[in-house]
């Protein structure tokens, strides 16, 4: 009986193709927008949080404010104090950074310079494509060596072969630095646009470029088995007591990633709700077309009743028709929605991840709309008087 009803429904949909499409437009647009929004929301959130956490979910960035008071607190021994007072602090990497003009032959450009220790690359999951990162002794002896991010290497050495050559960094004096490594490309992350940065040993930086010593940013790795968010909160409390809220800035990749997901999540839900309203409006369109269909087919209903169709059977027939109609709209909407989000994701350069939940939700929702808005017309058909409907012309 159900199969028969679906056949009948498909038959009457085929019988009025234009009408079917028009009446389904609301559902199709609604489902397509819900699927697109939720899928794109997923992709965008994934892409943003990926880049935030590309160096690890367990990083905390601590930047002291400028000033003589903070300079006393945030010296190179601060790491030990922090570790003693806050639970779950793993590695602490002091970094310093600034901007400078760099030159290779006739090519001159301005870029960011970062002074870091020899273990920086390994801890940030940052890999060399040529050469190898400077060693401990380079830092101790303040050697004039540099590591280039992929973009800056490309810019200064368009022909490649940067490793083994020298570049000049203009800051105080124009000293020459030996390029020891060129890094693989890496997505920009919190406080670091890897690809356009020139890295030099920390001690070289403080000796050559800093008049007053002081750490720029501590990159803190949370110890294993500790929740980055808890460590972040504990560190914040400790620092508030130590120097006051206004004298430092702390960001953890975990809390930032969470914040971004929650913002995009809220936005997605809000937009999907608007799509949902379109579905509701579409549902009213379905009810309208079903009422028209029932009225038009009064005679058919009369004939079927005379042949022995009970009210329940008639109701089932029209309800099935409404559900088939809306489910069809739902499937078409999903296909359009997936296609649309694939196009947008490609243009925006986001990873593409179909939201299966959104698809199931949309089909479920459109079927529910079919049932909800089909029930009244179907009940109306079921209640028709057999004699009156048989005599209807």
């Amino acid at each position, binding site marked *: 009986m159900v199969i028969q009803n679906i056949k009948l429904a498909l*038959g009457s949909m085929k019988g009025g193709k234009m009408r079917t499409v028009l009446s389904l437009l609301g559902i199709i647009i609604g489902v397509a927008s819900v699927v697109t929004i939720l899928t794109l929301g997923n992709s965008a959130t994934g892409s943003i949080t990926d880049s935030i956490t590309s160096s690890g979910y367990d990083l905390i960035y601590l930047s002291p404010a400028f000033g003589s008071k903070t300079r006393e607190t945030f010296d190179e021994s601060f790491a030990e104090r922090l570790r003693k007072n806050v639970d779950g602090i793993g590695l602490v990497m002091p970094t310093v950074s600034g901007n400078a003009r760099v030159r290779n032959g006739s090519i001159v450009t301005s870029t960011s310079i970062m002074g870091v220790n020899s273990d920086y690359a390994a801890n940030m999951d940052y890999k060399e494509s040529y050469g190898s990162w400077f060693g401990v002794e380079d830092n101790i002896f303040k050697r004039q060596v540099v590591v280039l991010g992929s973009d800056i290497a490309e810019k200064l050495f368009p022909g490649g072969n940067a490793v083994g050559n020298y570049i000049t960094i203009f800051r105080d004096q124009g000293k020459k630095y030996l390029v020891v490594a060129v890094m693989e490309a890496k997505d920009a992350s919190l406080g670091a646009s890897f690809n356009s940065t020139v890295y030099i040993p920390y001690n070289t930086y403080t000796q050559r470029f800093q008049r007053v010593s002081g750490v720029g940013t501590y990159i803190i790795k949370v110890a294993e088995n500790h929740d980055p968010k808890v460590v972040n909160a504990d560190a914040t409390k400790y620092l508030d007591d130590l120097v006051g809220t206004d004298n430092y800035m702390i960001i953890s990749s975990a809390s930032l990633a969470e914040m971004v997901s929650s913002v995009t999540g809220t936005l997605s839900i809000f937009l999907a709700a608007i799509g949902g309203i379109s579905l509701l409006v579409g549902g009213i369109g379905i009810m309208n077309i079903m009422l028209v269909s029932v009225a038009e087919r009064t005679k058919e209903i009369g004939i079927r009743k005379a042949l*022995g*169709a*009970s009210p329940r*059977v008639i109701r089932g027939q029209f309800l099935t028709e409404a559900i088939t109609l809306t489910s069809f709209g739902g499937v078409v909407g999903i296909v359009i929605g997936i296609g649309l989000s694939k196009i947008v994701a490609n243009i925006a350069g986001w990873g593409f991840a179909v939201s299966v939940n959104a698809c199931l939700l949309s089909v479920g929702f459109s079927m529910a709309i079919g049932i909800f808005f089909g029930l009244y017309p179907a009940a109306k058909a079921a209640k028709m008087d057999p004699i009156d409907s048989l005599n209807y012309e």
Partner: protein
Amino acid sequence: MDKIDWEEVARRIDSRDLPIIYMEDVHRYYIVGDIVVKALDGVSVKIYKGDFTAIMGPSGSGKSTLMNLVGCLDTPTSGKILIDGEDTRGLNETELAYIRNRKIGFVFQQFNLLGKITALENVMTPLLYTGGISAHERRERAEQALEKVGLADRMKHLPNELSGGQKQRVAIARALVTRPSIILADEPTGALDTKTGEQIMELFYSLNKEGNTIVVVTHNDEIGNACPNQIRIRDGKREA
């Protein structure tokens, strides 16, 4: 109330001891505004199994009301109706639909075929409502019914591809397919030319010879008088 012995009832109906259609002092009133329209005003009828009966009367006589009551499309205001032993008083829509499906085969003046499906599918439709009959058996029985009315070669045609006479044959096949107790035909020749009408009546005669109980409702004396039995209705009452 005594328990009804349905086997005994069926045996007595088969042996024409009990009527297959039994109406006793049936009234059917309609209220239109403030006026009570007495469409049927105390009619009693007995039709036995294997009968071929014409219900005759001019338009407005109440014959259509009578047909609706016999066909279980309607229930009486008062009086008793037994269809194949079954009392239709107080039955709800679903129960009436059940009796229509199993005991009545309708044939209408305007054929009333479903336009978007083939002749074969039209004939299969009542069996769908009977329930519990496989698609294969529905098809087989519908094919047999169409062969019986001489339309074996028109099964896959849509109604609008058939002539009036052929449409009425499809309708008769659809009435036969459930093996009903009664075939109830409402002006079956009314929309056909004389020659085709005669052919349809001949089909009814031959179906009657095979044992089918046939009731033809008509205002046409020629058609009615050609039937072996007549019931005449005028102003909601039976004429002597």
